[in-house]
């Protein structure tokens, strides 16, 4: 029993770390543009495919790629996806900044459709094997077992999130990003380069999302062109759960969601005598989403968005 608990905790932490990396992109974009970026899940997917392609270019046998090639592919891929994110924002969202609220979201839907089918055409719709980024070893800890893959994912995600935290809170650019998300008009009046800040967000979000995609694919050993949709939905749920627009909220929400999912999937078949099985795993995220919206629409760490706060932002 104890072993199972430890085991499931490790699993939840791993999945939570990956959700968090993606949720950050949603939350940062929403914080600044008040827009749901439906193409963000595709950045996750693109990350995995880009890393795969880079690896294939570097080494003849992907399964036997060395540490250097893997590292190079990882960083190459997330940078590529980051730049792709900036490019997509410039082409597909920026022209719509003064349009209706719906327009950029619809545009991002179009982008999402385009990217998924694009990858489907280029790489085939079938799932593909993805190499392990880390040597696969098991360690017994506290009665449960943790793999080196999980440890690697946790460390990588931790470093990335710590980097983001310092960047946003300590660096000059990060302060500018926060100023822009606090109030775009005020930032503009202060002479802040708003476009630059938005580009930066559309670089960092996809970059983190892509890293999540690579880690996810290497965890499960598989990637598909459509994997962005469901994971994206869950990451977005995590962002809402934590309070959309809040960066620590996105991380918190992601870990909570992962725990609920793991625990729920483990418990439900027992509680219902097998009537409800693990296939309902994906339903948890949605159930949580509805519950949060019903009882705490501002999320755990978010500020309530009311007409009052909107009027305030509008008039000052």
């Amino acid at each position, binding site marked *: 029993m104890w072993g199972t608990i430890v085991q499931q905790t490790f699993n939840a932490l791993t999945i939570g770390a990956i959700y968090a990396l993606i949720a950050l992109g949603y939350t940062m974009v929403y914080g600044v543009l008040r827009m749901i970026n439906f193409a963000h899940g595709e950045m996750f997917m693109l990350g995995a495919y880009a890393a795969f392609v880079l690896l294939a270019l570097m080494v003849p046998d992907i399964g036997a790629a060395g540490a250097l090639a893997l590292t190079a592919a990882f960083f190459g891929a997330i940078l590529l996806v980051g730049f792709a994110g900036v490019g997509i924002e410039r082409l597909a969202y920026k022209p719509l900044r003064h349009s209706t609220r719906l327009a950029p979201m619809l545009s991002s839907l179009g982008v999402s459709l385009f990217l998924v089918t694009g990858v489907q055409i280029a790489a085939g719709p079938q799932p593909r094997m993805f190499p392990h980024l880390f040597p696969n070893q098991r360690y017994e800890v506290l009665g449960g077992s943790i793999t080196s893959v999980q440890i690697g994912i946790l460390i990588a995600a931790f470093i990335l999130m710590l980097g983001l935290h310092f960047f946003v*809170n*300590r660096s*000059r650019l990060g*302060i500018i990003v*926060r*100023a822009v998300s*606090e109030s775009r008009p005020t930032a503009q009046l202060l002479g802040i380069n708003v476009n630059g800040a938005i580009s930066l967000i559309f670089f960092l979000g996809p970059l983190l999302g892509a890293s999540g995609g690579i880690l996810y694919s290497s965890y499960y050993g598989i990637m598909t062109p459509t994997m962005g949709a469901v994971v994206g939905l869950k990451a977005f749920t995590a962002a809402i759960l934590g309070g959309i627009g809040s960066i620590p909220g996105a991380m918190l929400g992601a870990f909570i969601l992962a725990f609920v999912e793991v625990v729920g999937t483990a418990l439900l078949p027992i509680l219902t005598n097998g009537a409800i099985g693990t296939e309902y795993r994906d339903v948890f995220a949605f159930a949580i989403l509805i519950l949060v919206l019903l009882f705490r629409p501002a999320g755990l760490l978010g500020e309530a968005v009311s*007409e*009052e706060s909107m*009027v305030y932002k*509008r*008039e000052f």
Partner: protein
Amino acid sequence: MNLVFENLRKQYGSNVAIDDVSAVFEPGLIHGIIGPNGAGKSTLINMTAGSYTVTSGRILLGDRQISGLKKYQIAGSGIARTYQNIRLFDQMTVLDNLEVCYYADDAGLAWKEVLWPPYAKSREAERHAQCRKALAQFDLLPWISEDAGSLPYGRQRMLEIARALVRDPSVLLLDEPAAGLNHAETAELTARLRALRAPHRIMIIVEHDMDLVMALCDRILVMHHGKLLFQGTPAEVQGNTEVQQAYLGTSNDIDEIKSAAQDRRAKLGLRARQRSG
């Protein structure tokens, strides 16, 4: 039916926007609310219209408590408003902008409008007649089938007032109706607003243009730092030294502005970057 503020208070965190304001507004009169920027004038309007919640105190229309009701309920019970920043339905025609106000009356029979065309026709004709009347009052009939967003700024201001007026409200709240208007338009507005005075109607105008306020209003409330500083007739307000000071400002105010700016910067984290030296 009087509109009554009872010990109204509105607080944002530690910032007290409205501090214990009590006042009575009577039908048939035009009430002005003046005060420097940030005094809390718009907050009063927004609380009355239900856009903002009330921290404590009550707002009553006759015997009925208004504060705490939903915004559409307040609008439905005859309180109409305009906004400091114009908020029209930009991509709807001028006529539709007014017609939609009848939703409060007609929503229950919308199914009948859909299923029984003759009823729809007659009901629509009634609504249109009312809307045209309000539009005619502001000479907006030439624009009747244009999109509201395509009107010149001055006409949009007029249209917003016409929209507030269409259901013959018992309380009319105007938040800076002359803001952004040129001299001629302000004169036009003054004349039109004067014509809106009616025995059953409470009019409340928030305005910075003193000529307009002094020319129109019967009673004036002076707000300052969220408090009700003074109330009286235009002549009394003009003669009051306290009011003059509030407008001219004291050295005190400058300190306050500075510290407020500092707070804001601290919040944004800019101070962290300021090197001492």
